[in-house]
């Protein structure tokens, strides 16, 4: 393993470029699992999501979760990017890309990371409604807590 990449940014990201950074020139990687989370328009009712975050803690917390993934699975590369600010429907919010020799490890690490990011990374989503009415803060889901809990040992 050669470390990992964590970026918290307002700008969009390029999935293909991130995948290339993980795999170009490598001949020892057998599997890459890439997760992309996108903003949905909720059947036309959502104009945008505004993602507030806690600068520095966001990077630190994602790095902590990344270290935990690396301790659990023999990964050969790992990139995590999380955007903040105003994000429109159809735009990408988050990317997790895990490279490993075998697919099971790459799948498990990517799913673990997403479950932990959802519940542990200091980001909060506020909805901007398409009809101009005041949007609310997205509520944390019990389902996400349950998803994170299944990884606890």
């Amino acid at each position, binding site marked *: 393993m050669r470390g990992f990449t964590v970026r918290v940014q307002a700008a969009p990201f390029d999935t293909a470029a991130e995948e290339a950074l993980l795999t170009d020139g490598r001949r020892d990687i057998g599997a890459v699992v890439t997760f992309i*989370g996108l903003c949905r328009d909720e059947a036309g009712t959502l104009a945008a999501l505004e*993602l*507030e*975050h*806690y600068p*520095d*803690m*966001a990077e*630190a*917390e994602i790095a902590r979760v990344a270290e935990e993934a690396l301790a659990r699975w023999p990964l050969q590369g790992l990139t995590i990017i*999380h955007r903040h600010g105003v994000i429109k429907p159809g735009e990408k*919010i*988050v990317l997790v890309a895990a490279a490993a020799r075998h697919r099971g490890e790459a799948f498990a690490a990517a799913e673990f990371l*997403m479950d932990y*990011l*959802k*519940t*542990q*990374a*200091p*980001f*909060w*989503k*506020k909805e901007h409604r398409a009809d101009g009415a005041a949007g609310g*803060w*997205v*509520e*944390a889901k019990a389902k*996400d807590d349950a998803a994170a809990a299944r990884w606890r040992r």
Partner: protein
Amino acid sequence: MRVLYFAWVRERIGLAEEDVSPPREVTTVGDLIAWLAARGEGYAEAFARPATIRAALDKTHARLESSIATAREIAFFPPMTGG
């Protein structure tokens, strides 16, 4: 001691951050929540249900019973909804 607020905690209090000087008997995150909640209407509203409040000490997740003795920065926020 620097205190930061995020999301609806920030909106209810009406501040993103402030310096506070709680009395010596405020030793834990939970104590600080109770002390802050008494500072005014917005604070009371923000901290009305402590179970929905998450806290971080110097950018690390903390619990209600965590000691704030050595913390320089304390943040309060709702359960996270990133990803």
